[in-house]
């Protein structure tokens, strides 16, 4: 029984979600392990979302946005860049392997790139195994 | 042998307990003082920027 990673993907509406949609309409075959959440801009992605995904059982998390310079809201993805860079340092301190979290830029026309990114993160997380976050007993995530 | 437990010790800062063992004649045969607490400051400040350490180790004792 091969381990099937559960990966949460948080995608910006204008570029990466559209790119992922294109992968679908182009009937590209790729790993089904990413569960997609759509936000309007990757700059909306609060590191809390990523931590909550891990805390609730995700083995990996992928944040995707427009290429720098192409953000629909002009500056949003620069904020993403800065936030995720600092966030990666915090994740490392929490002992989460770097392969479990990725920030990628995927444009609306890059359906094949989306498929490639998903396949890559799925394989990397598969190799790392389930994210055994050693939370103590009696865990309850506040709503 | 009679055993008297003082748990917790009081009117001081910190956790402790005392176990007193009395012989049949009522005199103290033996007495043990135990410290049932540990937080591990010695370990968890490792790697912290040096100027942050005083703000952390001041919490070893608030008294």
């Amino acid at each position, binding site marked *: 029984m091969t381990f099937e990673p559960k990966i949460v993907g948080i995608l910006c509406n204008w570029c990466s979600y559209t790119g992922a949609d294109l992968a679908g309409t182009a009937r590209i075959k790729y790993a089904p392990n990413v569960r997609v959440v759509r936000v309007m801009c990757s700059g909306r992605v609060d590191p809390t979302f990523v931590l909550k995904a891990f805390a609730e059982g995700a083995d990996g998390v992928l944040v995707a946005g427009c290429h720098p310079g192409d953000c629909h809201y002009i500056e949003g993805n620069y904020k993403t860049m800065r936030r995720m860079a600092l966030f990666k340092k915090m994740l490392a301190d929490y002992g989460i392997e770097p392969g479990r979290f990725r920030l990628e830029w995927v444009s609306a026309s890059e359906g094949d790139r989306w498929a490639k990114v998903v396949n890559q993160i799925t394989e990397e997380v598969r190799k790392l195994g389930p994210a055994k976050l050693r939370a103590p007993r009696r865990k309850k995530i506040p709503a | 042998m009679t055993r008297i437990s003082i748990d917790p010790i009081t009117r001081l800062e910190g956790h402790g307990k005392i176990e007193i063992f009395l012989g049949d004649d009522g005199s103290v045969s033996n007495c043990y003082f135990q410290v049932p*607490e540990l937080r591990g400051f010695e370990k968890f400040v490792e790697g912290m*920027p040096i100027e942050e350490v005083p703000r952390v180790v001041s*919490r070893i004792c608030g008294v």
Partner: protein
Amino acid sequence: MAKLKLASYWAAACGGCDVAILDTHEKILDIAAAADIVFWPIATDFKYADVEAMPDGHIDVTLFHGAVRNSENEHLAHLLRAKSKVLVAFGTCAHLGGIPGLANLFDRKAIFKRVYHDTQSTVNPDGVEPQTKTQMPEGELTLPEFYDTVMPLDHLVEVDYYVPGCPPTPKQIWAVVQAIVSGQLPPKGSVVGASEKTQCDECKLKKNEKKITSFKRIATAQPEHETCYLEQGFLCLGPVTRGGCDTRCQLSGVACRGCYGPPPGVLDQGAKAVSAIASVIEAKDEAEIGRILAEIPDALRSLNRFGIPASLLRRKTL
């Protein structure tokens, strides 16, 4: 009006919260007039056996401070919950895990190794470590089990109110006592004795525009004490910390480290700190961002100094 039966107990604590209660100075006499202390190890001689003998709900209010670090702390958390009508997580340790929560980057094995074997001033040739049970000629001695993970109080029992602060300020303690005595408390589960806004809202330092181009440390640079520390590049958790302490750290010349916990609606203070601080960095390319962020050493312990046990991930995965 009958006197309130009051208890104050410390788990993995430092005593600072008890001292803060005493720092209400002459108001302690008003507290003594309104309440009968039925259990307070720092100041009275009541024993665990006395608490165990009480009927359930006998204590009107228990102020529980300190984090839960071992089985004795856990036992008292459950015991005091049963014996108290109102249980208050008093101080940052009980609220969020506090400074002892920094141990969640390690585990029992690593901590015992350092404490009982490797510290430079320890002489322990037989490698003795604390045991939960030790057989002596006269009888068996016991010690609590030291857990791998530190927990805030509400990971174990239902908490009625939270009073944040390391320690809570005497001014706020007095406000909370008055609220308890007059029965004017908000809904259960609320944070009391603190503001509903962030530190920045009450901070009197001059604020302009935040555009950080480099981070500084007080080990190597001198801050200006009239201007916002974060603007100058000194890490300050004010934007992601609940107010209520009258910005005592900022007024003492150091930046906020977040002891009053997250503002209302924030699930993870460290994550919010990443978000708030990174978003005001002035840089648009990866290399420049990397260079600026390299100046923040020790990310997790700097961005979530007091609340790792209460954070979403709770501890480091080892």
